[in-house]
């Protein structure tokens, strides 16, 4: 494990670099896919930032101010914690925070993210944010269940919950090929916890911004930055668990990891722009009736493979 003096700046620098990349990807997707942004605040441009910081601050009647202001910080902190778990090279101890139960810690990050989003919507004490919050919890907890089975499946060939061991187990064959259902199901979780496209039940335009509807400009900016940070953490985690992380020929490990994570982030951004969002109850049925059985199947495939 790296010392805290190396791990913290490294994680934050990578996170910020990744957030810039996410902003660029989002802007590109808007331009190329011909979608008009719902709100210009969502774009991470410098001019936009200046305008946002200058804007007047508003509030609602009797909000829970502490929770409201801290929710973006919690969201961002969870993204940083998730990213810190990712091994940058193949060897034990080559992650900023290398823990024995790394994949379980990522599970805790997912679970606490649902709470951060819920608190963000609940604390403003207003109708639309509250609806977004409740809706998101229902969908978020269900899709999280799917991701848990998928992650257990990914840990099976490694015989360990340690992320470096999971990377090591993909030296011969990536989990993407060994467990073909894994990455697609995990990407859906990514769409949910980064509040994107078909699984954005928290901040969707049909609720006029959902949990962000009553945010003042500064809070909204903080929330959008945290959302980008979570996409970076998720992309790095998906690349580690399913695409072999830093494994690859010729180029050094961290470069491979960055390339793979960038690819996952691009796929998520494009999916978020292209897929339609169904009604929440319909999505709920789809998750429990189709996706959850698929995750069981994924686990069964992984189990049979591990027994062989």
């Amino acid at each position, binding site marked *: 494990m790296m010392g805290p003096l190396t791990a913290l700046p490294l994680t934050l620098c990578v996170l910020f670099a990744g957030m810039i990349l996410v902003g660029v990807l989002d802007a590109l997707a808007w331009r190329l896919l011909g979608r008009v942004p719902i709100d210009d605040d969502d774009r991470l441009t410098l001019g936009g930032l200046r305008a946002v910081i200058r804007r007047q601050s508003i509030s609602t009647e009797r909000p829970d101010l502490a*929770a409201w202001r801290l929710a973006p910080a919690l969201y961002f902190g969870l993204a940083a914690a998730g990213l810190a778990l990712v091994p940058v090279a193949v060897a034990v101890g080559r992650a900023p925070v290398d823990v024995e139960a790394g994949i379980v810690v990522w599970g805790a990050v997912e679970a606490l993210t649902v709470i951060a989003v819920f608190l963000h919507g609940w604390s403003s004490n207003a109708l639309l944010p509250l609806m977004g919050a409740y809706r998101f919890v229902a969908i978020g907890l269900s899709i999280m269940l799917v991701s848990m089975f998928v992650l257990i499946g990914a840990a099976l060939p490694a015989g360990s919950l340690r992320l470096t061991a999971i990377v090591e187990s993909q030296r011969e064959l990536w989990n993407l090929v060994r467990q073909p259902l894994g990455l697609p199901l995990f990407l859906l979780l990514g769409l949910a916890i980064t509040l994107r496209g078909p699984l954005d039940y928290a901040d969707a335009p049909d609720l006029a911004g959902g949990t962000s509807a009553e945010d003042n400009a500064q809070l909204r900016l903080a929330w959008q930055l945290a959302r980008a940070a979570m996409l970076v953490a998720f992309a790095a985690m998906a690349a580690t668990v399913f695409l072999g992380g830093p494994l690859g020929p010729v180029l050094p490990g961290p470069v491979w990891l960055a390339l793979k994570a960038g690819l996952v982030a691009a796929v998520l951004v494009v999916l978020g722009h292209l897929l339609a969002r169904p009604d929440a109850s319909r999505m709920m049925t789809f998750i429990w009736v189709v996706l959850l059985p698929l995750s069981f199947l994924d686990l069964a495939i992984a189990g049979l493979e591990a027994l062989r």
Partner: protein
Amino acid sequence: MSWADGVFWLLAAVALLTGWRVFRTDSMVRASFLLLASFIAVGAMMLMLGAAYLGFATIFMMAVEMMVMALFMVMFMMNPAGLNPMVMVHQHGLAIVAGLVTFAGLSAFALSLDLPDRPLPGGAEVIAPLGRELLGPSMLVFESAGVTLLATMLCVVILSSRSGRFGPSDLGSVPPAVDPAIEEDP
């Protein structure tokens, strides 16, 4: 006092303080998340004891559990937002007696117990032995707890769902009268 002692006492203080605030706050959602903060501090203490899996699993499970609990409490308690102020305690006399008895009992138990003192060597394997224990000698306890919990959850969902085998559960029910004048009129 080493830094580990300092961290332990800090976590203990957080666990106790947030645990106390659970009963002093005025909203079920806040109460749930304060309880979660308390459990996270306990989970961190378990990590300090070298229980790598159990510590993180406590944090992870409690996050999901408290979220579900907050949601269900708000659903069943008819306080739609959870931000409406309400008193979180009831049956004061009984609660005080039960609390004192439990505290005294648990304290006596903890003080009289001969706690194990076997520091693990650094880098010892702890997760695999835990798995073998849970799915080996402790299988019966582990599985009965799991199945009981599952049955409870299913029952709650079945009892609270509107549609059932015999049609909508609220068929023929009348909403409570808000205006007393409506009740008198047949």
